[in-house]
């Protein structure tokens, strides 16, 4: 067959968790050889649909279910779920920058109370904001002694998970 004499490799990268994974695919006869890092898989594609792909590897058949919301591809295979994203080199840096403080919403919900004003001096552990979702109450507390630099939310406001709620200044 034509492609046998002209093997060609495809390289596709995905962000999986914090790592970028490079997947190399090469057609070999009826099968596809897939290389991820130093691991080699010879797979056969059995069936492909928009939200489902079935392939055979090492004598076992696997079915993956897939869906995407445009930025993330969700895959369920063998009872596990995985989220793949387009590799984003800036992502790692951003996480480092904001990763330390606890001042973003840990779940989506509604701000029920704001307990401090801008400019207030606060102590480590002091409650700053109360967030509520599904009748659960979560207190956002100061991660260290310091001053409230900026309040980014108001009582009653609906926030997303990860949304920044408050900016703090270190007083040193």
């Amino acid at each position: 067959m034509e492609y046998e004499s002209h093997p060609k490799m495809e390289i596709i990268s995905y962000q999986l968790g914090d790592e970028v994974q490079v997947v190399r695919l090469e057609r070999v006869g009826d099968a596809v050889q897939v290389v991820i890092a130093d691991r080699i898989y010879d797979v056969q594609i059995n069936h492909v649909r928009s939200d489902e792909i079935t392939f055979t590897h090492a004598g076992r058949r696997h079915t993956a279910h897939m869906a995407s919301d445009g930025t993330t591809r969700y895959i369920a295979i063998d009872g596990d779920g995985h989220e793949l994203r387009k590799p984003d080199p800036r992502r790692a840096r951003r996480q480092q920058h904001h990763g330390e403080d606890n001042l973003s919403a840990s779940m989506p919900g509604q701000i029920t109370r704001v307990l401090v004003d801008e400019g207030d001096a606060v102590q480590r552990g002091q409650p700053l904001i109360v967030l509520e979702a599904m009748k659960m109450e979560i207190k956002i507390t100061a991660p260290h002694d310091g001053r409230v630099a900026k309040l980014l939310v108001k009582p009653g406001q609906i926030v997303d998970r990860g949304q920044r709620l408050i900016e703090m200044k270190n007083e040193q």
Partner: protein
Amino acid sequence: MFRKILIANRGEIAVRIMRACQELGIRTVAIYSDADVQAMHVRMADEAVPIGAAAPRESYLRSDRIIAAAQSVGAQAIHPGFGFLSENADFADAVRAAGLISIGPSSDAIRSMGSKTRARAIMQLADVPIVPGYEGGIDADFGEAAGTIGYPVLVKAAAGGGGKGMRIVRAPKDLEDAIDSAQREAEKAFGDPTIFLEKYVEHAHHVEFQVFGDMHGNVVHLFERDCSTQRRHQKIIEEAPSPLLDGELRQRMGEAAVTAAQAVAYHNAGTIEFIVDPQTLEFYFLEMNTRLQVEHPITEMITGLDLVKLQLKVALSEPLPFAQDQITARGHAVECRVYAEDATNGFLPAVGPVLLAKFPSMPGVRVDTGIETGDEVTIHYDPMIAKIIAYGQDRADAIRKMDAALRNTIILGVTTNVRFLRDVLAHPVLQRGEVTTSFIEREFADWQPGVSDSADLALIAAALADLQSVREWPTIARNPQTTSHDPWQVSDAFRTGG
């Protein structure tokens, strides 16, 4: 039988009740908030009535609007499901005052058992053993009482349920804070900030008995459910029968459960919750839930009964169709609650669009769900989105079947606890049937999904799908060097099927 019933609930329980109604040829009426216009329970009902904004107190808790809705469509009865208004005695009264049938117990029974403190007093009178505790009152000194009971103690909402308004306190210095926040949460969830103290029996089994009464004074129990696998005081895995009980203890506890229900002249479906100390096999009354229970399907599996249909019969004053000695149990059933939540992040609720929902279909497996592909999980309501129920000839068979069922439970787009449930099921303590209520906290506090063998398979699947989306594999390469293509640039790459 009824001609038309309004179901004053949403999600999987509304769907489950409608299924029973549809089987019996009863027309169903759904109610819905602004957030649920497209919800599964609305799509399934014969009629649907909007009742207000997304927040429950503006919609699913508005008894006035719900009763008006029932009257406007000519429904004869209201089924409250569980949660929302199901244990609200004023609602039951209002429904009956409007000339409708409330499918549930009398409002007197709801009131007696709804106040945990009053329930404790009634049980004491009926000689049903209760957990040592302190009810408080005017000038209550909770600090002193907690010292007398002995730490750890539980702060509980008198009007509570479902773990809301409940706190474990291990040291005197934490008592005041716990009482404050429990009161706030109780006020918010139940409109009543009253709390009480109870001895916290650590390493106990939570064993509850399903009871059923009719309006002619008959009360029976339908055996027990062991609901010891809990996180944040909420059940996540239940099974029937309990691996802890032998025939003798089962009989004694069943009799105590019937006595407890008779003490409030109970009719319709109810649950008597006990805690059992696995060391001494002593049992204590915890509370009664005066409604159908989330985990009722496992009782249905082992008894072969349909509890919702029984509820409808009893609500029409029909006598129970069986006596205690005619009820038998067979096999073993397990239920797993699928929550939209992040088990790696303190079980915090997750929200989002359900991009794909596929549930198992296999022998002995039942799925009760309120979501389908294309639905949305919002912040407004309980994050439980489905229940997977597995029935086996024995306990090991049921657990194995459950794992297979969970492997085939596919929910994409919103984070769920399915992987977590599988790890909990595989734990040797659960396999041995020795789970107590502190098990999850003790064994899974820092749970992370293990390094997955399937990550590479997922990458392979994604890459193959992307490969297929490029219409054909290029066949001629002038220059035999590798090329790279970016699947994210291909429009609609995910949906192209090759």
